[in-house]
């Protein structure tokens, strides 16, 4: 047997609500999990509401550790949009604190989302890129949002990848 791992998302005011095992990471002009981006398009020049997500180990399954977390996106964005995140392979800012997601710039969420698998971990555990999960629990928050350009006219479809290493 091996570890059981899912992706969670936090939404709402205060401590927020955790939705476990999300089925997509659609981004748009509403603060909601699994949103419909067609129903909530972003005004050109605006940002999407930020996503606060975690890699959540619900059971270790006999393994001793989960570590080396890497996140990236493949597929082009529409127009001149950019994708920013707190995930980074160097000068990691520590564990991001949850706050109700906004569609404005967030301090520390300014790194360009990688478009291929990073060479080293870019999402921390316990505030450190070298951290490990040794009992069921979750990573630091991955915070990310799309920044559109005023000239952008259409959205896009791309794929987010969340990778971990597992030590038997």
């Amino acid at each position, binding site marked *: 047997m091996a570890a*059981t791992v899912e992706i969670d998302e936090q939404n709402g005011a205060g401590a927020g609500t955790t939705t*476990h*095992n999300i*089925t997509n990471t659609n981004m748009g002009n509403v603060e909601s999990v699994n949103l419909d981006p067609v129903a909530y398009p972003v005004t050109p020049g605006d940002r999407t509401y930020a996503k606060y997500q975690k890699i959540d180990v619900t059971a270790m399954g006999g*393994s001793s550790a989960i*570590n*080396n977390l890497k996140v990236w996106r493949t597929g082009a964005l529409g127009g001149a949009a950019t994708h920013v995140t707190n995930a980074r392979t160097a000068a990691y800012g520590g564990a991001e604190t949850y706050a109700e997601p906004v569609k404005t710039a967030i301090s520390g969420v300014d790194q360009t989302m990688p478009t291929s698998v990073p060479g080293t971990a870019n999402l921390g555990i316990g505030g450190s890129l070298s951290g490990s999960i040794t009992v069921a629990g979750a990573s630091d928050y991955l915070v990310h949002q799309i920044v559109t350009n005023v000239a952008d006219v259409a959205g896009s479809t791309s794929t987010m990848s969340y990778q971990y*290493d*597992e*030590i038997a």
Partner: protein
Amino acid sequence: MEVCGICGEEFETREAYLDHACSTGYKPSEFEHQVALDPNYVKISEAALERGSQQS
């Protein structure tokens, strides 16, 4: 509050979420739960273990 993204059931605690029998027929803490949701999960898991074995 905790919400199961698969069956939509709501829970007061993470522990209660982990202990519920989901629409897959398994608990979220059971390996078979993820396999039921994504047949590729076994390969994902094997790849993670292979990367982990290369760390030591």
